């Protein structure tokens, strides 16, 4: 019992640390792309551990009480995690591409190969 509680505490600790780090990254960095790195990916990692903590808790309660409500809780959390993992990187990619096409260029970038490619497609000299 206590061992499982320590596992849940550890997962929730990782979750809180990375979720807070992701939202601090929004204010730490100075332009869109680096903010995207910190924000969308650290929060995805934190949320994985939040869902894992809930799954461990639900399976533990299921073993103790035998209530089918906890089976539903574990399975539904798993579906929520899969939905988040499938949709989150696609959303981040869509934001990054839209930001670049709408004219927000990366500041302080050492190289911008995508800008070179876009200029070549428009027929300008890079």
């Amino acid at each position, binding site marked *: 019992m206590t061992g499982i*509680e320590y596992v*849940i*505490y550890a997962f*929730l600790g990782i*979750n*809180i640390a990375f*979720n*807070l780090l*992701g*939202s*601090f990254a*929004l*204010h730490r960095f100075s332009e*869109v792309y680096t*903010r*995207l790195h910190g*924000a*969308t990916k650290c*929060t*995805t990692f*934190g*949320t994985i551990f*939040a*869902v894992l*903590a*809930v799954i461990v*808790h*639900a399976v533990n309660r299921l073993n103790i009480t035998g209530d089918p*409500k906890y089976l*539903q*809780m574990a399975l*539904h*959390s798993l*579906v*929520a995690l899969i*939905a*988040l993992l499938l*949709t*989150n990187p*696609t*959303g*981040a990619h*869509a*934001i990054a*591409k*839209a*930001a670049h*096409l*709408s004219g*927000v260029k990366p500041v302080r970038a050492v190289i911008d190969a995508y800008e070179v490619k876009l200029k070549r497609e428009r027929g300008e000299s890079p």
Partner: protein
Amino acid sequence: MIAPVFFYSALIIMIGAFFSVLRILLGPTVPDRVVGVDTLNTLIVAGMVLLGAAYDRVIYIDIAIVYALLSYIGTLVIARYLPGGLR
């Protein structure tokens, strides 16, 4: 009973959500605000799952599933319109 732990971690995650709301309000450009909205969506999904465990209600986790899928569509629509209309 371990339920208060889930409640307090949901509370701390909502502090992070407050910071992303601050970015939505401050953000100098539109993509900055969209990044804030995307972060807020992920944090709300995490918060709903944790609250579902804290109050022993499965329906909260169902709301988290639907919110994850719908917020993704919202982000995609904004990203599609951002470069200047549907082309």
